[in-house]
């Protein structure tokens, strides 16, 4: 009696502990000073537009030794840094602003604005993050991790093959250590560093362009119409819409351009006429290519109103792999007319000469339009480029198109590099789904005292989920991902970003599919790394003699507290509409980052205390975080209302509390109904449902039949013994006679 009272008091103190955890968590979020200096930092608009970039940012920090800097020059722009000694200026190196050169978004959908310093020999000497919007770096991972990551570039040559992951000396690939839990961010950052450095290095002659075999054209003798040229791909179109550059659409494109190479005899003759083509070719030096561009519609000029004689055409360029070809006034010729039959009317035209001898029309190339994109929230303009790839039809090339292997996209490399682990992960997910879909067969093999036919699979799922999915692959789904999707949906959705984290990508596909099939329980109850860890601790506690201290909250209290998680989720969602950074900060209510991504002992003590406290509490209450706090669980519980296939019930369940009593999730109400939003699909109730020594209607029927000497038939799909239907005496006799 005394002991029972002690236990009850202990359980009450556990309930108090749970509330204490919530309060402590809130305190952590409110009191913990967050140092994220460049997160959504306000940068002066002049930084992006002023010729004197270094007046607005400390360029000396990334180019040590330099004491003066030039204005922005080149296309894409960069700044030269000089050291003054004895009145003499010596070139020290170059400084570039990443957003002047590339528009690669990171995980947040926005670019990491980076200032990069490179010495005169092409070695990186300084990197500074000026602004980023990466939620994971706001709280989960210290910003210093990104700084440390960037420091890996120092001293490395811009022409080196640098990749995230292990070094592969046999392929001359230098590996960089990724930031655990921020893979997408560092993949994007690596692209930013290498492309930015490479573009400037090529302009200043540090990197030599790649030499490609020149194209030898076949003259087919034809003269084609405009439509034929477009259909075969010799003439291509690049359309940029106003919304692509942050403007409201007026129905007119921002710019609508058509372009094509004129050196191909058939194309050149069709566009310029025989005489015009021959005149053009006569004026070109060997290896030079002429490109025509016409604007048929649009509110913007492709030549640029700011163009001055001697300057650069800064809105169009040609790119071939890592080589970029820009155009100056001497590379420009007038295009007096397009003679191809059916050509559209145009308002602006030009012929540009690609003078780089390394350009080869035999290989794919891109026509690039560069624009300034308006950021409506800050009013600042950021650089954006739009391109269209062209590869001449094989019939114009002697020997056809040469063999060409496109370099893998960074996300594809990631999938290839981790192919075995990804395959193992997919096998795990498929196996769990198959096992669960065969639940009827499993629960029939189990009984109240021996649940191993089910638990063997479930416990294996937990262990693999904790070890492999959580700690190794760090694929713990999180509410921050849901918020990031919302953000990306609004700003810029790029599949490549989400594909860069293969485990999370695959996991979410699994989660979405299974939530609609069976509800959130399969993910939450079987595969969520933190949920698994939490319940495993409870089971271990049970085995090591703590069972008497374990318990559930009283049902009325549970029924009130379970709504807290929905409040947390809806609160986060609401806050995210107003302030994404604050929502990301509040999402620390999830202890996932502390547990799996960063590590319990790698964070400041309030976070560690919060996560460890929740895990400690899990020893005494089954999954307290999942039941009462988890915003991710709440977000999945809402669509679970409409899951297709639920668990079985008998009519007698309305008056029997056997299952409800044993339900760890406390998802069964007094009428025996299962709340699918709260159910974690542990299948304990389904084991009882088929157990003729535990399920009261079955027990009753078993006893009745045993007493009457009737056989115990198998239990049917409806959860009852298959009925014994007496055969009429006459029919039985007939059967015997025939037999």
């Amino acid at each position, binding site marked *: 009696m005394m002991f029972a009272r002690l236990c009850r008091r202990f359980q009450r103190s556990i309930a108090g502990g749970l509330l204490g955890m919530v309060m402590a968590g809130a305190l952590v979020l409110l009191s913990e000073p967050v140092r994220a200096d460049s997160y959504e930092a306000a940068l002066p608009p002049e930084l992006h537009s002023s010729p004197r970039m270094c007046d607005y940012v400390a360029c000396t920090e990334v180019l040590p030794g330099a004491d003066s800097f030039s204005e922005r020059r080149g296309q894409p722009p960069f700044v030269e840094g000089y050291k003054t000694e004895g009145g003499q200026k010596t070139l020290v190196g170059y400084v570039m602003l990443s957003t002047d050169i590339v528009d690669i978004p990171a995980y947040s959908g926005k670019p990491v604005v980076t200032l990069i310093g490179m010495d005169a020999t092409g070695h990186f000497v300084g990197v500074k993050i000026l602004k980023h919007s990466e939620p994971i770096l706001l709280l989960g991972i210290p910003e210093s991790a990104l700084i440390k990551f960037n420091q890996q570039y120092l001293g490395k040559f811009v022409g080196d093959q640098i990749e995230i992951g292990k070094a592969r000396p046999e392929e001359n690939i230098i590996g960089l250590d990724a930031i655990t839990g921020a893979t997408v961010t560092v993949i994007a950052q690596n692209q930013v560093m290498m492309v930015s450095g490479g573009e400037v290095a090529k302009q200043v002659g540090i990197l030599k362009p790649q030499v490609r075999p020149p194209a030898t054209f076949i003259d087919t003798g034809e003269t084609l119409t405009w439509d034929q040229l477009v259909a075969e791909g010799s003439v291509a179109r690049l359309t940029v*819409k*106003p*919304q692509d550059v*942050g*403007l*409201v*659409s*007026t129905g007119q494109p921002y710019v609508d351009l058509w372009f094509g190479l004129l050196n191909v005899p058939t194309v050149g003759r069709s566009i310029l006429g025989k005489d015009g083509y021959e005149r053009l070719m006569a004026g070109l030096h060997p290896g030079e290519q002429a490109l025509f561009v016409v604007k048929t519609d649009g509110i913007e000029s492709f030549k640029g109103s700011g163009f001055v004689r001697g300057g650069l055409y800064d809105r169009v360029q040609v790119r071939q792999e890592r080589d970029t070809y820009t155009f100056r006034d001497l590379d420009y010729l007038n295009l007096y007319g397009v003679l191809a039959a059916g050509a559209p009317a145009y308002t602006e035209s030009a012929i540009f000469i690609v003078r780089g001898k390394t350009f080869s029309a035999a290989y794919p190339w891109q026509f690039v339009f560069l624009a300034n994109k308006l950021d*409506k929230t800050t009013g600042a303009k950021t650089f954006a480029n739009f391109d269209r790839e062209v590869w001449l039809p094989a019939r114009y090339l002697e020997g056809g198109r040469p063999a060409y292997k496109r370099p893998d996209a960074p996300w594809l490399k990631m999938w290839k590099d981790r192919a075995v682990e990804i395959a193992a992960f997919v096998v795990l997910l498929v196996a769990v789904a198959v096992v669960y879909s065969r639940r009827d067969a499993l629960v029939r093999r189990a009984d109240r005292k021996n649940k191993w036919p089910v638990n063997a699979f479930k416990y294996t799922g937990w262990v693999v989920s904790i070890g492999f999915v959580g700690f190794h692959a760090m694929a713990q789904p999180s509410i921050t991902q849901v918020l990031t999707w919302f953000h990306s*949906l*609004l*700003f810029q959705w790029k599949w490549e970003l989400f594909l860069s984290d293969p485990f999370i990508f695959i996991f979410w596909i699994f989660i979405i599919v299974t939530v609609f099939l069976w509800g959130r329980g399969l993910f939450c109850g079987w595969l969520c790394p933190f949920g698994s860890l939490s319940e495993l601790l409870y089971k271990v506690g049970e085995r090591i003699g703590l069972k008497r201290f374990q318990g559930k909250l009283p049902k009325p209290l549970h029924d009130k507290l379970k709504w807290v998680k*929905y409040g947390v989720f809806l609160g986060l969602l609401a806050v995210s*509409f107003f302030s994404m950074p604050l929502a990301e900060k509040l999402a620390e209510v999830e202890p996932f980052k502390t547990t799996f991504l960063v590590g319990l002992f790698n964070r400041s003590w309030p976070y560690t205390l919060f996560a460890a406290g929740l895990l400690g509490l899990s020893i005494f209450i089954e999954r307290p975080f999942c039941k009462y706090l988890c915003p991710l669980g709440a977000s999945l519980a*809402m*669509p679970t*209302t*409409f899951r*297709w*296939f*639920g668990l*079985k*019930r*008998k*009519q007698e*369940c*309305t008056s029997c509390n056997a299952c409800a009593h044993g339900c760890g999730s406390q998802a069964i109400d007094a*009428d*025996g*109904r*299962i*709340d*699918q*939003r709260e159910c974690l699909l542990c299948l304990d109730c389904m084991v009882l449902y088929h157990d003729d020594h535990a399920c009261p209607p079955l027990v009753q029927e078993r006893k009745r039949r045993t007493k009457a000497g009737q056989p115990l038939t198998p239990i049917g799909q409806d959860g009852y013994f298959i009925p014994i239907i007496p055969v009429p005496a006459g029919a039985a006799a007939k059967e015997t006679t025939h037999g």
Partner: protein
Amino acid sequence: MVDPAMLTEPVEPAYAAGATTRRLAAEAWDHLWPWSRAGFSRQKLVQAVGLALAVAVTTVWVLAGMGEMGAGALIGWWVGWSACEVLVRLSAKPYVKEGPWWGRRYRAASVMDMLCYVAFKNLLVGALLFLTLKALGRVVV
């Protein structure tokens, strides 16, 4: 009698027993039109306010289609309308579907059921409209 296989009491809308195509068409109408005569006779004020707000939110979408409405305001209106739709449906069409969408089982909606239903439906409808307007360049974020 309580049906333990359902979270709430079974309900049979008038169209539930009809032919499949007619039933699915009626369901589609249900998704788009939250009002009913029964609802009006039960709670006139809620239904009328809902109707007025629906006109307002439709106007907001039209304005957005004309490029006259910011993304933030649009989302705000949509969320506000969704909250109102929960109240309207709870008095006019207080049921949700149980099980697969092709099935014929319906049950009484609790507030949470209706919240989940409206939130999910309007998320899909809102996302579709929003992304369409964004693709057309009418809404710029």
